[in-house]
């Protein structure tokens, strides 16, 4: 036990005295703090809720021209009478206006529009990444005129129905800031992915660097593989957890001192319990992935090959990211439930579900039990090949080697 504590202390001290870690852990929040203050001062008079940050900001209206050879456009709805459109007699005059930057683009509505349904959209700055400019306005204008200026009918045809979620529990009503219902679970998923991955990567770097500077040969003659591995996992886990807590605390502190509040929709179960679950799932997620990373570190000869092989280990953690849309739409559907219980995906996926709310208590409890059992199994397996002969072999790394090692075949 004493040697485990010595390894823990050494790992923590080594990381805490590393400038890159200090900059990342304390420098980033300080930078964020400064930027937040600047931002707050610039917007001092506005006391908007944080949810409003995510709302669409007002955009500058750009005038676009059109040449109506089909004779469709007879009226412009009120909401588009803001200078969005300017009609031209012919294409030459529109083109000249475009060249003179009087308009930002123009539409050529052909006489055979009813047959083809095609409108030519002429823009000087075609950019596949910038979407389709303001063409949605032309759709609105076109539909409005197809229905002889009946805006209600036009809107119904374009957007036939609007589903309103009605929870069974009448005490729960959906808040106005439905963006947060998406953003909070999404951010939680990303945050957990980053936090677990970065903490587990510390372990990979620690093992590989001890191999590269050959100190491992001396260390292994002082401590057992189990003591070394346990000490590293606990020490670096503490460092990772501390970093996450610092980030979270700084985030909340910034919000508080700037006089803002997090306007959370009632549908979101964003209670203190989620913070506790967060810590629990961070710990089990870290245990699983740090053990896997340590195993990987034992097998790879250098940090370059370690980086290339990392994907193999983190692949299961990416799965919830791939299914995030489905998980957000159906947080209690079969895919989300399976991913949140499967030990390799549970730490990230369960947090996504918990952030969405309405998860039965036994789900996270079962997920934690399964994840802990898996972590223990992985730790035991990794300890088995975390011995000097493997650590010093320097053999070329192949993915198959990792899987062989995990099933005890080396």
């Amino acid at each position: 036990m004493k040697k485990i504590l010595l390894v823990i202390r050494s790992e923590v001290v080594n990381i805490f005295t590393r400038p890159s870690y200090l900059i990342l852990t304390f420098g980033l929040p300080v930078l964020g703090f400064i930027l937040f203050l600047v931002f707050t001062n610039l917007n001092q008079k506005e006391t908007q809720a944080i949810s409003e940050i995510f709302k669409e900001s007002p955009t500058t209206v750009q005038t676009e021209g059109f040449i109506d050879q089909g004779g469709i456009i007879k009226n412009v709805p009120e909401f588009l009478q803001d200078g969005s459109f300017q009609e031209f007699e012919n294409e030459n005059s529109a083109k000249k206006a475009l060249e003179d930057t009087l308009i930002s683009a123009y539409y050529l509505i052909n006489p055979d529009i009813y047959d083809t349904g095609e409108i030519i959209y002429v823009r000087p700055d075609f950019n596949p990444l910038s979407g389709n400019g303001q063409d949605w306005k032309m759709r609105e204008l076109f539909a409005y005129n197809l229905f002889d200026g009946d805006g209600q009918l036009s809107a119904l045809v374009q957007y036939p129905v609007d589903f309103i979620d009605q929870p069974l529990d009448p005490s729960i009503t959906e808040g106005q800031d439905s963006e947060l219902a998406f953003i909070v679970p999404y951010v939680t998923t990303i945050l957990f992915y980053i936090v677990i991955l970065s903490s587990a990567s510390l372990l990979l770097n620690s093992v590989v660097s001890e191999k590269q500077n050959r100190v491992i040969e001396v260390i292994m003659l002082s401590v057992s593989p189990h003591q070394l591995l346990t000490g590293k996992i606990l020490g670096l886990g503490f460092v990772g957890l501390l970093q996450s807590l610092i980030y979270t605390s700084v985030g909340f502190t910034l919000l508080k001192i700037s006089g803002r509040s997090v306007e959370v929709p009632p549908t979101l179960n964003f209670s203190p319990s989620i913070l506790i679950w967060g810590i629990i799932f961070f710990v089990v997620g870290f245990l699983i992935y740090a053990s896997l990373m340590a195993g990987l570190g034992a097998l790879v000869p250098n940090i370059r090959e370690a980086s290339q092989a990392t994907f193999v280990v983190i692949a299961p953690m990416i799965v919830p990211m791939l299914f995030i849309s489905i998980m957000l739409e159906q947080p209690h559907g079969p895919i989300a439930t399976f991913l949140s219980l499967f030990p390799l995906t549970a730490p990230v996926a369960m947090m996504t579900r918990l952030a969405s709310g309405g998860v039965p208590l036994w789900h996270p409890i079962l997920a934690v039990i399964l994840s802990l059992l898996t972590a223990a199994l992985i730790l035991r397996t990794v300890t088995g090949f975390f011995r000097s002969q493997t650590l010093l072999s320097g053999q070329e790394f192949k993915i198959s080697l990792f899987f062989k090692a995990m099933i005890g075949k080396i």
Partner: protein
Amino acid sequence: MHTIDIKNISKRFGTNQAVKDISFEVNPGEIFGLLGPNGAGKTTCLRMVLDIFKPDTGSITLFGGSLDEGKKDKIGYMPEDRGLYQDIPLERCLTYLSSLKGMSKTEIKEQLDINLEKFGLADHRKKKVKELSKGMQQKAQIIATLQHKPELIIIDEPFTALDPINTQLIKDILVTLKEEGTTIIMCTHQMHQVEELCDRILLMNEGEKVLYGKLNEIRKQYSGSDVIIESPNEVPQIPGISNIEKVNGTVRVGLENSLSPQDLLQNLIVNNIQIEKFQIAVPSLSEIFIQAVTKDGIDE
């Protein structure tokens, strides 16, 4: 009881048979030399002794049993590939390595002050290890090996990167430790560096035992009947002298079986030859090694 008892160990890496059926013992309080050219299998042997590699066959006994966690603290090991944390200050690195060997904070501080001073590193204790020269890192590695006053010291190529002064310093320290009862195994390909230190040796080549035993006996075994004479006079052609060869101001005289060195010396005195040096020509370890490996078979 032997400190180390090794019986018939072998180790193969793929197609390379690194060690072939090696047996030897190391006695308490002796300096044992594990010698041989690069690739002879010395380091593999040491790593098997330290349970870093498992032997394919054979058995290894340390302090009367197998190596367990408790015995690890009795051993000081300096590997061939130097292993120190590069990005942390020297003092912290040595303190950590010492603490893992079971030393208390007070012991570490006390011993570290002495050792850093002795090895000329006291002024560099706050520097990062990577900022030290190779020679300094080598000395730091030796400190890490000796700090906890181990009963058994195993050092692989201890004189690499050291200048003559520091080489002598290390030699003196090893002799002192031996006098204090520490068992030392020294592994090197620089045979000339250890001839004066070792009590017994195992000379290896291509994974096999070439020579094994007390250094003096091996030398005697390989010393011929030549003598080296330094004299201002010409050495006369006495019956029983097979050849006379001048080498760097000395004369190497080959003797036939009929003439012993004592008879020759007596003869030279009778003939009023002024003798400044008269020495039985003892071959160096390198010469013995060359002789041994070029012969058919392996001598014990």
